[in-house]
């Protein structure tokens, strides 16, 4: 409907020179004067509008000429022509052949910076595609630059494909839009790596031929040329290795992950040489007198301005070259870590791996690579194991349920097999989702963990039913054995882990106010960790019962005495850690209650809400869980009421009790056989808190009005309490 008449006049009309046509078009009548005059007759504040259009609709209009809303005005205000690639070549503003070495190095480094900025969540149009060369590599005559341009396009394309496939990003992580740019799809991956390799070999010859020879008089220009060739060589090689590594990740075989790891290690070896040669590249011509962007040959930050969507303009600040190498080395470190996942075979181990990896807040590319390495296209774990088998193994490892034991009559019983198989199949999707959740960014993870509890509640229900059915079957076949709460215990364990993680991540994300700490820590110590420990010990005893039966069967068959050696219980480490966490939480809970008694916790004026409203909001996702049942606010108030003790403890007693909890946590952690970094991190909080709470118990600074500080720098979930 828009401009219908003009289109009728000239079908090809909307190409070049439209404003010219529009001016000549007799259909348009100027009414500026009359219009403005008529407007003046309107009252102040009066809107003249159609019935179907009101103030509400008017609110959503973008305001032209407002730099915060109008992306189009930026491109229009610079005092230079914004040229696209073809135009720039025609104008001679850009070289496509005979580029000098410093020019090539500068262009490549700037492109790397653009690539990184894109990976950090900006749009392709404002980052990689501000480089005119990648718009159409076919027009480039310089072989090194052409190969590089194709290489960087392929890197973008594969990275985009990986991120899309893994689906662990949100709009704040990644912009997948390509704005219709061609991502070198007409050239095969192999051809591009081949081209890069050819350029690399050619450069290597140059590097060798310019190398200083013995007894040769060396002039500084020769030496500089040698250095520049070397710098370019390293950059091309880095591009090739990065691209090859990404291509390798797309292969289906598990062995390819190891191969990719080798390639990124090789790429990492080039980084220090790249860092020391950054100054060889040309710098952007910083013509800031006109308030303009710094201009670099081959780059036009505004070339895609008109492709941006009509939302408020986002400004992509391209990272500095000095930070480029540091980013790449961290990226490669992360990719190396990702490759290690294939060495973990147990589902619980894999889940822990994902949790630990996520704790470093990794970039979207490494997170996506981890996801796609874990579950390959054929829906198999690492491309080889069925998820169902992984779940069965995890169950055997955790509770040794008789139904999955080769030595049990249920193992070959059809009905029992049907029950367990269907349960395991139903587990498969929620567990895949759980692993996928750990690929999201930290803030989104919390949200999604709250939602997945619903799915686990359904599984819990099924697990209990299957347990009961299997138990009654087993009682008929082998009356001396039991199948009570085996599968249920395992699901409950995961339920509790998710709930605990949900609450703890609130500290990391700084969601809680100081006056909320006490009930969060109470819920953790008195409830969730208590449940977790009883769940773990039930699993442990279930394991032992199964082992005893196995031993007896072995003994019965052979008279040989099996050596009684004290085995380390598989779950012992986790039980120990849970005890430590529980003590830390209990210590924090009691400290917070005591601080409150002393008037050292600032509370909001509960006018429009109440503590109950906040409490219920904090634990709302737990309402979908049946076991453990949610603790409602009234129950919490009753359970935590200090008046049930005689005499009710004062703040000094509570500080003392808190100190003992921290002391207990310290004792437990110091006895952990081979302490991991997490153990040391908790110790760093426990030790000072023992001292602080002891001092507080002794009445130290009791009258100070200054509020205590909570320092979460040593540990994400437990603060060091500081009294100033």
């Amino acid at each position, binding site marked *: 409907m*828009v401009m219908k008449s003009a289109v009728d006049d000239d079908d090809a009309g909307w190409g070049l020179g439209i404003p010219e046509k529009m001016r000549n078009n007799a259909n348009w009548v100027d009414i500026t004067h009359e219009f403005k005059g*008529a407007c003046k007759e309107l009252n102040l504040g009066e809107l*003249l509008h159609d019935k179907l259009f009101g103030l509400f609709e008017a609110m959503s209009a*973008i305001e*032209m000429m407002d730099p915060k809303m109008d992306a189009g005005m930026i491109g229009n205000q610079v005092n230079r022509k914004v040229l696209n690639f073809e135009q720039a070549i025609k104008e001679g503003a850009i070289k496509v052949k005979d580029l000098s070495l410093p020019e090539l190095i500068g262009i490549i480094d700037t492109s790397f910076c653009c690539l990184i900025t894109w990976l950090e969540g900006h749009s392709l149009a404002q980052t990689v595609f501000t480089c005119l060369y990648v718009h159409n590599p076919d027009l480039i005559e310089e072989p090194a630059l052409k190969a590089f341009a194709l290489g960087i396009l392929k890197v973008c394309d594969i990275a985009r494909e990986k991120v899309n496939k893994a689906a662990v990003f949100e709009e704040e992580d990644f912009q997948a839009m390509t704005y219709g740019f061609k991502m070198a799809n007409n050239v095969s991956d192999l051809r591009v790596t081949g081209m890069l390799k050819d350029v690399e070999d050619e450069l290597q010859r140059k590097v060798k031929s310019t190398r200083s020879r013995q007894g040769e008089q060396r002039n500084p220009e020769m030496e500089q040329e040698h250095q520049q060739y070397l710098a370019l060589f390293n950059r091309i090689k880095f591009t090739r290795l990065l691209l090859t590594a990404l291509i390798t990740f797309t292969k289906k075989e598990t062995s390819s992950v190891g191969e990719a790891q080798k390639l990124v290690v090789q790429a990492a070896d080039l980084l220090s040489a790249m860092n020391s040669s950054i100054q060889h590249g040309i710098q952007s011509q910083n013509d800031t007198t006109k308030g303009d962007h710094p201009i670099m040959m081959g780059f036009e930050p505004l070339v895609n301005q008109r492709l941006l969507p*009509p939302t408020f303009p986002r400004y992509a600040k391209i990272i500095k070259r000095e930070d480029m190498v540091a980013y790449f080395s961290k990226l490669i470190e992360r990719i190396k870590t990702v490759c290690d996942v294939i060495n973990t075979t147990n589902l619980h181990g894999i889940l822990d791996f994902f949790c630990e990896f996520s704790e470093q807040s990794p970039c979207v590319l490494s997170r996506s690579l981890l996801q796609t390495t874990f579950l390959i296209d054929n829906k198999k774990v690492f491309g080889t194991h069925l998820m169902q088998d992984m779940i069965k193994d995890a169950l055997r490892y955790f509770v040794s349920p008789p139904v999955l034991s080769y030595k049990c009559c249920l193992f070959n019983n059809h009905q029992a097999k049907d029950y367990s198989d269907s349960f395991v199949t139903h587990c498969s999707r929620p567990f895949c989702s759980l692993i996928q959740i750990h690929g999201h960014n930290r803030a989104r993870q919390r949200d999604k963990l709250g939602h997945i509890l619903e799915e686990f509640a359904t599984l819990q229900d099924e697990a209990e039913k299957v347990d009961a059915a299997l138990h009654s079957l087993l009682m008929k076949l082998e009356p001396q054995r039991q199948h009570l709460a085996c599968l249920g215990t395992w699901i409950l364990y995961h339920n509790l882990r998710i709930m605990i993680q949900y609450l703890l991540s609130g500290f990391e994300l700084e969601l809680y106010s100081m006056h909320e700490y006490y009930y969060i820590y109470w819920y953790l110590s008195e409830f969730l960790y208590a449940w977790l420990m009883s769940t773990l010990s039930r699993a442990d005893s279930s394991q032992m019962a199964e082992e005893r039966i196995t031993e007896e069967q072995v003994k019965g068959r052979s008279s040989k005495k099996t050596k009684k050696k004290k085995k380390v219980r598989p779950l012992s480490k986790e039980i120990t850690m849970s005890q430590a966490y529980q003590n830390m939480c209990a210590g924090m809970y009691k400290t917070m209650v005591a601080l409150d008694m002393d008037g050292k916790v600032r509370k909001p004026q509960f006018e429009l809400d109440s503590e109950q409203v906040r409490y219920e909001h904090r634990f709302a996702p737990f309402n979908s869980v049946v076991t453990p049942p949610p603790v409602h606010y009234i129950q919490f108030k009753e359970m935590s009421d200090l008046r049930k003790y005689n005499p009710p403890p004062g703040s000094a007693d509570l500080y003392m009790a808190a100190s003992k909890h921290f002391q207990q946590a310290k004792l437990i952690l110091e006895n952990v056989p081979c302490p991991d970094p997490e153990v040391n991190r908790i110790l760093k909080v426990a030790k000072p808190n023992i001292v602080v709470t002891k001092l507080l118990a002794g009445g130290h600074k009791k009258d100070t009005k200054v509020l205590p500080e909570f320092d979460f720098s040593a540990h994400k979930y437990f603060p060091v309490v500081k009294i100033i």
Partner: protein
Amino acid sequence: MATMIEENGPSTHEHSHASPSSQARQKLEGLLNKNMKIRMTDGRTLVGLFLCTDRDCNVILGSAQEFLKSTDTFSQGEPRVLGLAMIPGHHVVSIEVEADSLEDTHGFGPNH
């Protein structure tokens, strides 16, 4: 016609054609939902449906398309789709409408 103005400001209910303000309103209302071409102070031209205006000549265009200035011979190309756009009155340089849309509107155009 007066009903639509009611909610946003005081309006004169008597339809006296002599009153200049009610004449002006009728003129403007006749243009509603017509194609309009507005040139802005920075040289860009927006084409869209006229939806709303006020005393300061702030104009809202619907389904607006943005065309770059005609002097810039290089960046002309496809128009950019903006959707709903408000042009502040002080940035309006010129306003044009299609001649056919003036047929049923009195008081505008060259025939006046």
